[in-house]
């Protein structure tokens, strides 16, 4: 699997892609593969304040519940409505259509502390 060069990654297996003052956040291909069949995604409502390193929602597979940790701080501007109806999309396209939330960044500098694609790939042993 190739991890997009323009994303930044956490050791908890989230990614963030920044455009202007907005970060789009998702979970990685590796994360969805480890979780297995995803059946439920719990996301925060627009307007929710999230903080870097703190959990803002959860992803559930058939077997287990997994917290999602925010890679950045800011305000949620949109939650991906696709996932309420079709959580399995997270297994199919975790780096694309199945993004989780968009966040207006409180501090764009947060992203600098995250892993590059190469570092993340090395971290997960790929």
């Amino acid at each position, binding site marked *: 699997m190739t991890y997009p060069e323009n994303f930044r990654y956490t050791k908890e297996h989230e990614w963030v892609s920044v455009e202007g003052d907005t970060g789009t956040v998702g979970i990685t291909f590796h994360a969805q593969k480890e979780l*297995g*069949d995803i*059946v*439920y995604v*719990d996301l925060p409502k627009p307007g929710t304040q999230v903080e870097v390193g703190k959990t803002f929602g959860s992803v559930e597979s*058939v*077997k287990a519940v997994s917290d999602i940790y925010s890679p950045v701080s800011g305000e949620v501007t949109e939650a991906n409505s696709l996932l*309420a109806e079709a959580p399995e999309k997270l297994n199919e396209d975790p780096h694309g259509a199945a993004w989780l939330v968009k966040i207006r960044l409180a501090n764009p500098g947060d992203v600098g502390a995250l892993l590059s694609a190469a570092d993340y790939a090395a971290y997960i042993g790929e």
Partner: protein
Amino acid sequence: MLKQTPLNAAHRALGARMVDFGGWDMPVQYSGILDEHNTVRTAAGLFDVSHMGEIEVRGPEALQLVNYVTTNNAAKLAAGQVHYSGLLYEHGGFVDDILVHKVAGDHYFLCVNASNQDKDYEHIAAHNRWNCSVENHGERYAQIAVQGPRAIEILQKLTATDLSAIHYYWFADGEVSGAPARIARTGYTGEDGFEIYVDPGQAEARWNELLDAGRESGLKPAGLGARNTLRMEAGMALYGHEIDASISPLEAGLQWIVKLDKGDFLGKAPLERQKAEGLKRKLIGFEMRGRGIGRDGYEVRVAGEPAGWVTSGGPSPTLNKNIGMCYLPAAQAQPGLAIEIVVRNQPVEAVTIPIPFYKRAK
């Protein structure tokens, strides 16, 4: 060091994801839990259940010992017949739930849960007042389960034993691919199927032959993940979840394996008392109404008050709902009651429903 079944290398070769399951290195999934689950419901799945334990009781008074340590009435079994039973402590809670196979009047073959095997053996041996031989034979048997509507046609290709003549919960000692095998028409999925006991040295050959024989019927290897969702839909108990040392078979809805009229057995007195005085709590099914999944250990509330706990819960791939089982005060353990499951500090609406959730068409 995790224990391994004789099929460990075969699982790894198939790309299974392996997990520590009660000290055993076991496959939790191959192609994915949902795919494996649906394959078992529509075609067939192949499971390695070699971690399960086997205990053999032999001797002229084998029936006396088996009937004293179990709740069902083993005197009713014919040779070649199997039944589900409870192994209870004197206080009426479960040591384990087991399958009792009557091989002959002086030989009973018990299939027990992997992680309970040594405890079960010691428990039975401690109550052996009849000079029976009680042997812990888990390492002498590998066990492979073929489960699903097409299991019979797949296994029939490899055995001369007429499988259609083995009724549900009966077994035959025969051969699979020319090697001795105990072939039981039992399972833990809610589907038709067979559980085959073979020599561990033969297990990998049998596994691979079954996969080959089943290819055109849609057979796939299936792991413990699918085994759990399948048994949950079928409303079958799992030790450590629906039943344990603190739970009686009456509370767990297993009164059908309790034969109070068969003579003395371990746990009889407290069960009679429970029956006379009424149960404090009972197992009941639920389905989620709100968004969220009730999982093992979550609190259950009735009218806003803590009332019980979830024993098993998760998505039901066949019914396409989120279901589970929970304990509630007996008076409330009726279908149709609005309840709440506390999902990560958030009460989510659910409603009680009968168990089982799924029954195959016969």
